[in-house]
């Protein structure tokens, strides 16, 4: 009963503080919204391919046309035709139209291939940026396909020529153009293709979700603010110790264990309620499939809240001042969020970083949520993450108890 009283007191104290609304709810929702848009799914309605300007100075040249056709079919970049004034520069156009790069097909580009040369496309891009690197790779693929078509035309016409020489330059050129056109057309439906799909255990009725937009930002920000939210319970404990409320409480018939358990339960309730609200907002406002497996989602939420409340307890008993609570909570948030894959998927980091990341509870919290919303797994898929989160809960709680006892002794 006393445990419950202390827990309810903490809950009320935190909820009544105006800062709670900001740190526990407003900030995570705004962050989720913001990063959801920033990391938006390219598969949405709007064309979110990276825009690349194309300046065609080769007119109706056959190879120039072929390059634009091949690039136009890209799933990664979107070709934006540009007009360049005589002697003008593409650089101002890039900034003005927010282009990641510009390709200039120079005058005589197609003619160069007829003459047996391999002219280059002039490209302007910042290869030090992620966008620039991606655009460069995609342009390389398109150029190689066009060069492949040129080579196919070359091989074909040379073989025909060796058996039946053309009657003059014009016929030879027509034959080359015909072969090239056929080759380019064939590249629109190549004989060997790769069909790629995400593998999930979802039912046929369930729409698989990609790890972009809100599906990445919602659980990530939830885990981040579960840690940052420790700021509030941590402050409650420090405040109690500074005002000697804790020591007065211990003069009552309330045991130390009951005091600690009461605070822990209070912190758990705060963390769990915060996640419950964020899960509901994530499901109904952002379309993240948390409720696909309600029991599994609830289990992960409980495990994360238990882990966070133990960490909050540890923070509260180790910090001496409110400033220290803020500092510890901030550092904890930065380290656990960045290294646990809450800000960006660990897949895109180096191997060492990713391995270290999985020594942190935040990475397992992310795994638990992702196993449900992305992989479509049920209870079986969250057993390991939940087990590890509970192990962290036990460790943090044990260390907090040790610090609490030491503090009271001193």
């Amino acid at each position, binding site marked *: 009963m006393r445990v419950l009283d202390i827990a309810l007191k903490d809950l009320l104290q935190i909820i009544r503080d105006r800062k709670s609304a900001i*740190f526990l709810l407003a900030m995570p929702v705004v962050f989720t919204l913001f990063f959801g848009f920033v990391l938006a799914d390219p598969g949405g309605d709007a064309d979110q391919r990276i825009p690349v300007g194309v300046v065609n100075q080769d007119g109706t040249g056959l190879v120039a046309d072929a390059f634009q056709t091949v690039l136009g079919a890209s799933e990664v970049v979107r070709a934006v035709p540009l007009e360049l004034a005589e002697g003008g520069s593409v650089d101002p156009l890039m900034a003005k139209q927010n282009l990641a790069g510009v390709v200039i097909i120079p005058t005589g580009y197609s003619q160069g291939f007829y003459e047996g040369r391999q002219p280059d496309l002039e*490209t302007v891009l910042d290869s030090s940026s992620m966008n620039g690197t991606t655009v460069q790779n995609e342009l390389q693929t398109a150029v190689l396909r066009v060069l492949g078509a040129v080579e196919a035309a070359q091989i074909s016409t040379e073989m025909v020529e060796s058996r039946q020489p053309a009657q003059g330059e014009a016929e030879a050129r027509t034959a080359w153009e015909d072969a090239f056109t056929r080759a380019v057309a064939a590249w629109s439906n190549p004989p060997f293709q790769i069909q790629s799909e995400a*593998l999930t255990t979802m039912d046929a009725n369930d729409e698989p979700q990609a790890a972009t937009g809100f599906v990445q930002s919602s659980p990530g920000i939830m885990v981040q603010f579960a840690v940052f939210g420790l700021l509030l319970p941590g402050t409650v404990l420090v405040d109690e110790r500074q005002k000697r409320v804790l020591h007065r409480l211990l003069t009552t018939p309330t045991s130390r264990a009951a005091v600690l358990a009461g605070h822990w339960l209070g912190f758990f309730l705060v963390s769990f309620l915060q996640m419950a609200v964020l899960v509901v907002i994530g499901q109904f406002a952002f379309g993240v499939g948390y409720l696909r497996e309600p029991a599994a989602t609830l289990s992960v939420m409980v495990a994360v809240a238990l882990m966070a409340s133990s960490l909050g307890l540890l923070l509260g008993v180790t910090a001496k001042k409110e400033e220290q609570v803020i500092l510890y909570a901030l550092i904890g948030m930065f380290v656990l969020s960045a290294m646990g894959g809450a800000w960006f998927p660990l*897949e895109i980091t180096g191997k060492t970083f990713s391995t270290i990341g999985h020594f942190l509870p935040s990475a397992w919290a992310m795994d638990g949520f992702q196993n449900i919303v992305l992989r479509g797994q049920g209870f079986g898929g969250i057993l390991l993450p939940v087990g590890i989160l509970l192990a962290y809960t036990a460790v943090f709680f044990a260390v907090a108890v040790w610090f609490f006892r030491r503090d009271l002794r001193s």
Partner: protein
Amino acid sequence: MKLSTLILKDLRRAFLNPFGLSMMFVAPLLITGLIALAFGGMGGEDAQVSIQATRLVVANLDPGSAQAGFSAGQLLTDFLMDESVSNLVQVTSMDDAEAAKAAVLGGEQGAALIIPADFTTALISDKSSTLHLYHDPTLTIGAGIVRSLIAQFVDGFSGTRIASDVTISQFSGRGLPVDEGLHHQVAQEYTAWVTSMGEQGSGQDPIGLTIRTPADTEPVENPIQGIMARIMAGMMIFFAFWTGANSALSILREDEEATLPRLFTTPTSRQTILGAKMIVCALTVAIEVVVLLVLSSLLFRIEWGSPASIALASVGLVVITAGFGVFLISFLKSSRQAGGVMGGALTMLGMLGGLFTEGIQNIPAAFKTLNLVTPHGWALKAWNASLGPGVGPDLLLAFAVLVGLGALFFALGARKFSRRFA
């Protein structure tokens, strides 16, 4: 004399506070360091953007063709297992397609490639063949990298078939006989070309593309350094705004501790006392910016822009953060409100200003416009422009806006404080 004494007292107080020091120096360096570690070590000339290799299981169902004397599926498997691509994919093989898919579902593998039984026969006939790549849905770019790698190899096969088909159609169109040797000859010539392209593409220069960096961008040897500089600039700006506000907060703290009213009873004018506070605000941010620039250069080997560019961006940042700090804190009734306002308002403005999204590609253009609604966005614009060659018009514009806005915020905040303590 009184002014300098007051300034020194406040500066000493600011730089002896462990919490303040952590927020000024440790936090921005820690976050940048973490991101640096995640994506490519700690900077420097040898650092490269690196991501972990994707675990790929290959189920090669292609027995090959006795007639052709080779297995296209085995060639593809060997290519994926080659040392040259081991930094991108970590390949294991399995005989059973379902077991390979189960390994992806179970999380042991990131992707499974199923090479169909008809892969080789399609190559030597006129049939098509489709390879299936199943990937873990949590993979964002790893699946794309694996697909691109496989596509590079398979495009060679497609190209061979296309060259062969085009040649046959040319022969047929001219009534020339098509014999078995023709396929072989085309395949040989096309394969030789693919091999030569592979050798050409193994160097640093792309094939068929001449690349130059945009005029307003400083070419960098190493992409990670450019990304690191932008991330560090974002963190420096965010924490400089925090420092500006925290310094201005000392006015409220001293008022609550009753040291400010006591100071007002001395023969020191209120303007001198409040002026000293505001100078401390600017000096603290200036010291923070200089220290962060030096430390980030040493720790992460970030190559900042020219001295003139850095000076302009730094002065702009100092003026705006000091001015905005005084303005923001002038609205507070007590220092107890500071946590929520500083944590909430500065974080929101930093987010809208684009400080936390530097390095994310393909951000909608509207967000970049939205950035400039906040002073943080202008500060970021100034620092990004300072990374380019020389002092450009973008940097000058951003500098002018920062100084103008900073002066305006400062005047408004100072007016409010002067009235409050009149």
